[in-house]
């Protein structure tokens, strides 16, 4: 497997900058990735190099990540996989650098802005109640798949116009895509996803509906409709972005909440504080690590980045940086001036962030209204997934089913 080979250390990397971490398999990460990355952040250096997975830098501090993510002149989005996938298929707009990026991004932004998401409020509530209905009387569930994933993925599939009866199949593809697989397998899955999106395109071109796929096909970019290729790479990105991000963020939030009964009661009686809970959870439990590839040589905080170097911004611990948030390991919804970049920063700031936040808020509110007290099932074994998108694969919860 590609990930087991250790690359030689390039000459521009100094020995004291090397820390040996396999982001997919390191046991420290698999025991709890946020705590592990926080330990790397505390131990320093702020920028280090691991020889695993083709060799790449890891950035652990908020301000350095922010500098890199806002500097597409030196740090390009053209390669977004670690190890490198070297695929000719783009993710539009994610893998485009300015100035090509904005015109595609604008088309998507329009469908994910506050107004569009606010119009979905009833749907978000309906899906929450529908899914909680399935488990409430049982008194226990594996939150991760049954709710954490089912909720945002169902909403997303409905919004896109993807057939809900293929839920399991699509979810399976995405889970495998982000797990520790070979690049060859990842390329195969890429083909599969693209096939799904292109079939949908065919259908909606013939018979447009009210869904996002139809709307995107009707959009104009500088006066022209999206070409098949452009649509394909947008669809590929939305498929991956929509099917395995909120799922993890929501599961992380409930992992925390399950162990904090005081916060459960507080949020149940003060639902107006849910937005703060969502932000605090995103600060403590980010999901996405963001890669960049060096396009132009540059020096930053004592590290020399050469053309072609892969760089991974550890966004999930940016919010735990003590240089940004005092007492960062404390989960505190009353925190003032909270800083996190779970949705990245700069030109590629997550387009789905308004939707993601609304989903996390709406779901938590519905849950606490119906199940105000719950806990981790005793003896529950937590299984974390490392890699670029962090996940908790199981989260067994229990509560009094009597009501």
């Amino acid at each position, binding site marked *: 497997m590609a990930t087991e080979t250790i690359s030689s250390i390039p000459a521009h990397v100094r020995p004291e900058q090397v820390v040996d971490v396999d982001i997919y398999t390191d046991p420290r990460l698999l025991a709890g990735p946020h705590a592990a990355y926080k330990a790397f952040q505390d131990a320093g250096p702020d920028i280090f190099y691991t020889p695993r997975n083709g060799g790449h830098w890891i950035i652990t501090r908020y301000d350095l990540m922010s500098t890199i993510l806002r500097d597409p002149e030196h740090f390009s989005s053209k390669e977004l996989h670690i190890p490198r996938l070297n695929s000719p298929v783009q993710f539009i707009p994610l893998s485009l650098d300015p100035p090509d990026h904005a015109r595609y991004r604008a088309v998507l932004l329009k469908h994910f802005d*506050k107004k569009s998401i606010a119009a979905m409020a009833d749907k978000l509530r309906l899906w929450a109640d529908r899914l909680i209905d399935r488990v409430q009387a049982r008194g226990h569930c594996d939150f991760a798949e049954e709710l954490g994933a089912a909720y945002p993925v169902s909403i997303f599939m409905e919004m896109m116009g993807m057939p809900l009866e293929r839920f399991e199949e699509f979810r399976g593809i995405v889970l495998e895509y982000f797990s520790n697989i070979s690049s060859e397998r990842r390329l195969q899955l890429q083909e599969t996803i693209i096939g799904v999106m292109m079939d949908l395109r065919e259908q909606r071109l013939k018979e447009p509906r009210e869904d996002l796929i139809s709307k995107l096909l009707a959009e104009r970019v500088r006066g022209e409709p999206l070409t098949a290729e452009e649509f394909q790479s947008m669809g590929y990105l939305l498929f991956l972005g929509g099917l395995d991000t909120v799922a993890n963020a929501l599961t992380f939030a409930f992992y925390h909440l399950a162990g904090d009964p005081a916060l459960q009661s507080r949020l149940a009686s003060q639902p107006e504080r849910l937005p703060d809970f969502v932000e605090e959870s995103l600060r403590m439990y980010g999901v996405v690590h963001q890669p960049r590839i060096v396009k132009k040589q540059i020096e930053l905080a004592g590290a020399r980045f050469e053309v072609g170097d892969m760089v991974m911004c550890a966004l999930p611990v940016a919010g735990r940086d003590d240089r940004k948030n005092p007492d960062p390991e404390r989960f505190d919804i009353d925190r003032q001036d909270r800083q996190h970049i779970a949705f990245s*920063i700069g030109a*590629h700031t997550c387009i789905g962030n308004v939707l993601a936040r609304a989903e996390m808020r709406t779901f938590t509110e519905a849950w606490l209204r119906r199940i105000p007290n719950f806990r981790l099932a005793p003896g529950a074994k937590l299984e974390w997934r490392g890699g670029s998108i962090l996940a908790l694969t199981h989260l067994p919860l229990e509560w009094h089913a009597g009501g």
Partner: protein
Amino acid sequence: MPRINVTTRSGETLTIDATAGSSLKDALMDGGVQEINAVTSCGGCCSCGTCHVFIDAADFPRLPGMQSQEDDLLYVRDDRQPTSRLACQINVTDQLDGLKVTVAPEW
């Protein structure tokens, strides 16, 4: 110090002292107009639209033109007006003294 006259979303008007060399978005924020900065902001990278402002028509010609990226982002908006700009893309200079801007509705 260039002075900027601002009308906020609620219709309140105020005058702020801006620092030449900063972006108009930063100048507005430093002057206390926090509504220009949403939690969904891209951090001034011409990619989110949350810093959308309308420039007073009489002042508009005083601004340097916009890059294609800014135009692309504004292109899809229903609430775009002929004098729409993204504040993060405007560099405050002494020549802009007295500029009148209105914060556009939220995106």
